[in-house]
């Protein structure tokens, strides 16, 4: 393999793992903010081209179907707020820990200051950070609920995402409440908060271990994309792991892997279907069925 022949490249090319495919995704986010603020959602315009089947589809029709292509079932991006509306019973969501705000502990600056990046992401998405947590009902079953929005700095996990999830899990442990986390993160652990982001993986996983010991039911739902440090922590720790069809899910980003091993990646590599085949997820669930599938699983587990 390439790394064996070339020690220096192994040292440099190997390491993007917890940050998953953030480079590709980062490009998307940045271009998105520069050109059109809604690029990551269903594109503007009456008709849109589906990236799944290349067909021109009527935008209203896509939106009516929870952002799923009527021709090929391609699952478009949905924002955290839309997700709440899709999964929870209307008007039942009560947010928690909205008062937590991200800060810039490292005074990190790449080509842009992190503190400025946070402000522009907040303005662009209307979110304070990449995760929304709270409680709500799923077909009249009360749950602890979290969703990460892959539009906010790639849905990456920094201190606020880690803290909100941990508080939610601790609350669910005390209240003996089923826990649902819907993940969408191309970024994994957020680079801009450095080692503190990495440690959120341990913090959230430790909270889940306590929740598990107390008998809690955790259903993890993976959406496109779930990569790096998010995949390598809470997203993989569900008692049940569901995934939307054709989502990109994995540890290292495809570009990193390709750069390391120097060969083309197989068709369908790191998709939901690939993970199902290799035994890492329980069910592929279409968006239309997600709510009823979650409710049914809760009932089976007697929660």
């Amino acid at each position, binding site marked *: 393999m390439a*790394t064996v022949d070339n020690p220096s490249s192994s040292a440099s090319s190997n*390491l993007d793992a917890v940050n998953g495919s953030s480079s590709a995704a980062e490009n998307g986010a940045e271009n998105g903010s520069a050109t059109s603020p809604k690029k990551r959602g269903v594109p503007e315009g009456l008709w849109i081209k589906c990236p799944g089947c290349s067909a021109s589809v009527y935008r209203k029709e896509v939106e009516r179907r929870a952002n799923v292509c009527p021709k090929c079932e391609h699952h478009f991006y949905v924002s955290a707020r839309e997700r709440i509306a899709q999964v929870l019973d209307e008007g039942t969501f009560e947010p928690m820990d909205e008062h937590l705000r*991200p800060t810039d502990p*490292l005074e990190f600056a790449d080509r842009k200051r992190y503190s400025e990046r946070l402000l522009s992401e907040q303005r662009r998405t209307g979110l304070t950070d990449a995760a929304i947590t709270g409680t709500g009902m799923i077909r009249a079953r009360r749950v602890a609920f979290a969703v990460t929005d892959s539009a906010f700095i790639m849905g990456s996990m920094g201190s606020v995402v880690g803290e909100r999830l941990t508080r939610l899990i601790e609350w669910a442990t005390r209240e003996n409440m089923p826990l649902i986390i819907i993940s969408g993160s191309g970024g994994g652990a957020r680079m801009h908060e*450095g*080692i503190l982001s990495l440690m959120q993986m341990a913090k959230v996983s430790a909270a889940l271990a306590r929740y598990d010991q107390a008998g809690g039911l955790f259903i993890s739902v993976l959406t496109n994309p779930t990569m790096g440090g998010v995949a390598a922590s809470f997203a993989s720790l569900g008692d049940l792991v569901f995934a939307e069809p054709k989502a990109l*899910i*994995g540890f290292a980003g495809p570009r990193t892997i390709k750069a390391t091993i120097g060969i083309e990646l197989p068709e369908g590599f790191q998709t939901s279907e690939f993970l199902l085949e290799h035994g890492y997820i329980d069910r592929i669930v279409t968006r239309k069925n997600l709510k009823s599938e979650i409710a049914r699983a809760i009932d089976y587990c007697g929660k």
Partner: protein
Amino acid sequence: MDLAPGLEFEREVFLLETQLAELEKQTDRTPEAEETIRRLRGEVNDALRALYSNLDPWQTVQVARHKNRPYTRDYLNLAFDEFVELHGDKHFGDDRALLSGFAKIDRFKVMIVGHHKGRTYKERAASHFGCAHPEGYRKVMSKMRLAEKYKLPLICLIDTPGAYPGIGAEERGQAQVIAESMFKMSRLQTPVICVVIGEGGSGGALGIGVGDRVAVLEHAYYSVISPEGCAGILWKSHQYAPKAAAALRFTSRDLRGLGVVDDVLPEPLGGAHRDHRQMAACLKSYLTRTLTQLEAKPIDELVDERYEKFRRIGQFIEEPVAPAAAS
């Protein structure tokens, strides 16, 4: 000591050291030669002290990756009295990037797991330069269970550029095993000490990094991403790795300041690669001292404190909540 050129910023020291080694080789030395040796020794030490008391983050990365830096196997030889390697992951294969086994240190019997980059070409090829596959994490998880069952304290030596990014690694659940390992370590019913001895490369490092004490060697680093990876993403070129290294705040001093590590172990003058024995002695004394402290605590208390320790990590602003601002 094996003189190896390597670090660009050490060039001057290297020239002095070479000169010194030449003189020291001579058997009958004139008084003048003796004097020169004394003077050169002084100069080497002064130069090393000046360099190493003030390494910048990118230099730290190079020291942490130095090819003569002591690896897990060196510590097993120098700091431990016995090592009985245990290989099996009972699933797929024997990953050479993560070693595990019984070991004795002072009066303690322990379970040790550690990344091993490898000294020889063959070893390095077999271990992918210390980048573990899922079977490595499965192997060490099975040894952790054994340690818990038979009340052996667990020692984890961390030294990896990162978990291996490859097709097989993804097929066999790289993300899942790292998550599972942290999940299990957080509640492991035995004392756990983790020491970053070289590179603490993101998830691959944290996969064996959840302990009652987390220490880092003075010139090791522990980061969410490699400086090259970070530079590639945020600056669009690996060339900016030194910039990324500074921005990521991952040196031992930063790590302690951020509350991520409990202890920093001092390295010999000029870095661990200059004196394996002294470094191993320092590690040994740290481990035996810490094992003594940890064994004195009831295990429930220890596991609760381990939780709280990670629970506290993170920085954010908590805005005052207005009474009726629930939604």
